[in-house]
């Protein structure tokens, strides 16, 4: 018995050529990249160093002020970045005006360094609205509470920029815990496949609320994950603001010139609890926190810049005074924020209000009028 095998015409489309990259070149160095206290520190523009210093000093003061406001009940909650100011400052300073920053809920400091008014940046913590600033004014996306979900947004914005012929880069921030989320993997994969001009900054502050990194990921380094997606990973000392700035600035320029995305892991430490309402003594030894205080990003920078002769006592005092003024201004204006108008509840749900929403709007308006009449009779 013979079997006739029909010939099948299989048309295979031209395969996409993968980028010609040596896999070894994608792997990060085993030791976090450092600049301060190394020979690399020479030759950096003094003006940049001073800017970064003023930023971290002001950033520390901002963290202290916002934490105080939270403890006084004037903010509903505040997730501090004390100990992580170097990452926050570097992320904002690595970008050009046409670029976009995609922060998490913890990254108000990065938004502020980018130019966002601190009073507006704290709106979500104060509770007057879910978001307080114009995202287009300084190109800072809304703070995002769900973890890693803003990363695909950064990829999409960067892709759109490229399709429109703009040389915009998106820098997206995420924490160590956020790298366990599906959206992190989808976003990094999309960015790599689309060669979108995106930089991912993982701030590894060692804890996702109470869960330490070892229980979060079995990877040797979070930056190692980049290799599997086909993009370069960089590991950097997250308390060395100059190093983080340098790595991010390089990655941003690479993306801008068609080099594709980069995944940067900054090794840092969250000195404060997850938020002011968290008891960190339940999950970590205070001596560990003390050890990290010795590697404080503000002190590390101040010490190095003094050694380099970039900074003197007068500069340090000047920065401190300026930071105090900044905090006083924040306190003053924070206290004078008007209460939100209840009618705005209906203003922005849709571009075109549904009839159902208009009915509810009328109901609330009537309730407010009745209440006002009642109050006026008292």
């Amino acid at each position, binding site marked *: 018995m013979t079997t006739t095998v029909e010939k099948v015409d299989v048309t295979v489309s031209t395969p996409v050529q993968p980028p010609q990259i040596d896999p070894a070149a994608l792997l990060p160095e085993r030791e976090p990249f450092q600049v301060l206290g190394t020979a690399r520190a020479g030759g950096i523009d003094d003006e940049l160093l001073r800017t970064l210093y003023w930023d971290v000093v002001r950033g520390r003061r901002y963290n202290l002020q916002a934490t105080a406001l939270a403890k006084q009940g004037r903010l509903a909650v505040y997730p501090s970045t004390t100990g992580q100011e170097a990452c926050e400052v570097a992320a904002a300073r690595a970008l050009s005006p046409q670029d976009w920053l995609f922060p998490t809920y913890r990254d108000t400091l990065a938004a502020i360094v980018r130019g966002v008014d601190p009073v507006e940046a704290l709106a979500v913590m104060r509770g007057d609205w879910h978001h307080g600033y114009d995202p287009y004014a300084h190109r800072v996306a*809304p703070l*995002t509470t769900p973890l890693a979900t803003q990363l695909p947004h950064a990829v999409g*914005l960067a892709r759109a920029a490229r*399709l*429109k012929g703009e040389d915009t880069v998106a820098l997206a921030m995420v924490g160590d815990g956020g790298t366990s989320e599906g959206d992190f993997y989808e976003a990094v994969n999309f960015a790599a496949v689309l060669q979108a001009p995106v930089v991912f900054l993982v701030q590894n502050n060692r804890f996702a609320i109470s869960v330490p990194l070892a229980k979060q990921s079995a990877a040797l380094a979070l930056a190692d994950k980049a290799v599997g997606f086909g993009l370069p990973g960089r590991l950097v000392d997250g308390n060395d603001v100059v190093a983080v700035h340098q790595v991010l600035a390089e990655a941003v320029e690479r993306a801008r010139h068609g080099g594709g995305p980069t995944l940067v892991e900054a090794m840092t430490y969250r000195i404060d609890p997850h938020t002011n309402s968290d008891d960190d003594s339940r999950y970590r030894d205070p001596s560990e926190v003390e050890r990290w205080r010795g590697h404080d990003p503000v002190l590390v920078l101040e010490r190095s810049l003094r050694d380099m002769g970039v900074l003197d006592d007068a500069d340090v005092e000047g920065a401190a005074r300026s930071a105090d003024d900044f905090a006083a201004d924040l306190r003053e204006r924070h206290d004078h924020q008007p209460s939100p108008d209840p009618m705005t509840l209906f203003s922005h749900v849709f571009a075109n209000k549904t*009839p159902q929403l208009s009915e509810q709007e009328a109901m609330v308006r009537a309730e407010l009028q009745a209440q006002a009449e009642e109050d006026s009779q008292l």
Partner: protein
Amino acid sequence: MAQVLNAALRDALREDPAVHIMGEDVGTLGGVFRITDGLAAEFGSDRCADTPLAEAGILGTAVGMAMNGLRPVVEMQFDSFAYPAFEQLVSHVARMRNRTKGRIQLPITIRIPYGGGIGAVEHHSDSSEGYYMHTPGLHVVCPATHADAYGLLRASIASDDPVIFLEPKRLYWSKAQWSPQSIPEVDPIGTAAVRRHGTSATLITYGPSLQVCMEAADEAIKEGWQLEVLDLRSLVPFDDETVSAAVRRTGRAVVVHESAGFAGPGAEIAARITERCFHHLEAPILRVAGLDIPYPPPMLESHHLPSVDRILDAVARLQWEPGTSDGESC
């Protein structure tokens, strides 16, 4: 209907350079249902883009594209494949305008091949409109006719609000006596249409169940019933005015849909009618809905989907007079 949807997408791509289609297999293949057939060839693989297989990534990327001035049209390959994108949908797409006080708008159209009746395997036949309807900030539309497939899709893409566009799968292959020249004026999203006038009772439905209701209305004539048939077309916004007027004309109503009845769209619709038309009602509002079961295997789906007989049984139950035994069992 597949060709009509294809024509709507083609016309949208031609008229507005901001329109970008993206999804799994929408490029070279033209989509598993061929809705995007030929569009990548005509407009390029950037404007009709194959993406990695990741729904949250697809929708999340569309959010960023919309933030940067584009109008993404996203295809979710099958109704239940859209669930991984649910967080992006409810946590970002639906809320972004509200969160940013209108500063960021997301004109994203999310096309979802929807519903059963095509003998597909599990996870290819869900009716998921209830999830979307329950999320403030989303429009939810579902065409039942060729003209609406074109008109509603064009209106969805033109809308500055995100729209869930449910495409009844079993109508994909319905032959179109249709050409772009023959379409009537496009109605705005949020208006229902009376497909048939009647006096005995009003059938309220949308999408794939419209055809079943029209057949039921034909059959009902043998019983002496003149049924009115109302096609909602848009679930959000909901056209209370047209629905209420139709129910007041007949005093009796049956809501017909494929998705599970319990806490389903019919419950909301019946409640809205009761609130607005109680004194005009001659009988309780009844629902003919999908069973409260996970979508059944293909060989059993006929027992799940609303049928002409079930609709006629419901209409019969509505013809009761107060005090009769029928009425008490109602």
